[in-house]
């Protein structure tokens, strides 16, 4: 089971901070496609890769990264700290 986390504008727009998800997605890109299929705000955010940043188990990764069963995957807009 994956743990999915959403931050900043994504958390607000999706009205979701964290969820547990049983998914057959093998990669980050496949998982995003699955999330986009929920429609509405999910489709708006996840149907395009531009503007989405992903971390797998606390490390920034690319969309082609493979997923493991108990991963924590976080989705967020480009960072704006400093």
């Amino acid at each position, binding site marked *: 089971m994956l743990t999915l986390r959403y931050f900043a504008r994504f958390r607000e727009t999706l009205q979701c901070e964290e969820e547990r998800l049983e998914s057959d997605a093998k990669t980050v890109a496949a998982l995003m496609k699955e999330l986009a299929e929920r429609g509405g705000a999910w489709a708006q955010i996840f149907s395009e890769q531009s503007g989405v940043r992903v971390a797998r188990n606390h*490390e920034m990764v690319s969309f082609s990264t493979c997923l493991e069963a108990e991963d924590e995957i976080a989705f967020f807009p480009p960072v*704006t700290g400093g």
Partner: protein
Amino acid sequence: MRHIRVQMTPLDVRAELERAQTRGPGALVSFVGQVRELEAGEPILGLHLEHYPGMTERALEAIADEALKRWPLTEVVLIHRYGDIPVGEAIVLVLSASSHRRAAFEACEFLMDYLKTEAPFWKKTLSATGGHWVEAKASDDAARQRWEST
């Protein structure tokens, strides 16, 4: 030596500087990022900083380690605040110390350029009319990329 901290409380820049100075590095360069009065031309009351606990510390450690690998530094300090920060207060403090100035200057700039694009922080403006999420700047990505070829 590296010193990383993510905190909600105000940042005591003077105390951190004095602490670093007592270790007598030779050259000490500091950068303080503060909340501006205007954000995209609009007056604001402050900024709200959200972060990703767990990942934030890990990202800052990785950035500091990379600087320690590239330059002969005696110390790297990275302190970043989160939560609500009023106009004029410090958001971030970066200190780099070395025996000589060049390594300290370069490392300080490198640390900020990487922090801006790698550390999971997000800014939201606090204003009388509500507030909005600050957009990332392409110039920050460009600033980071120039280090990749060196």
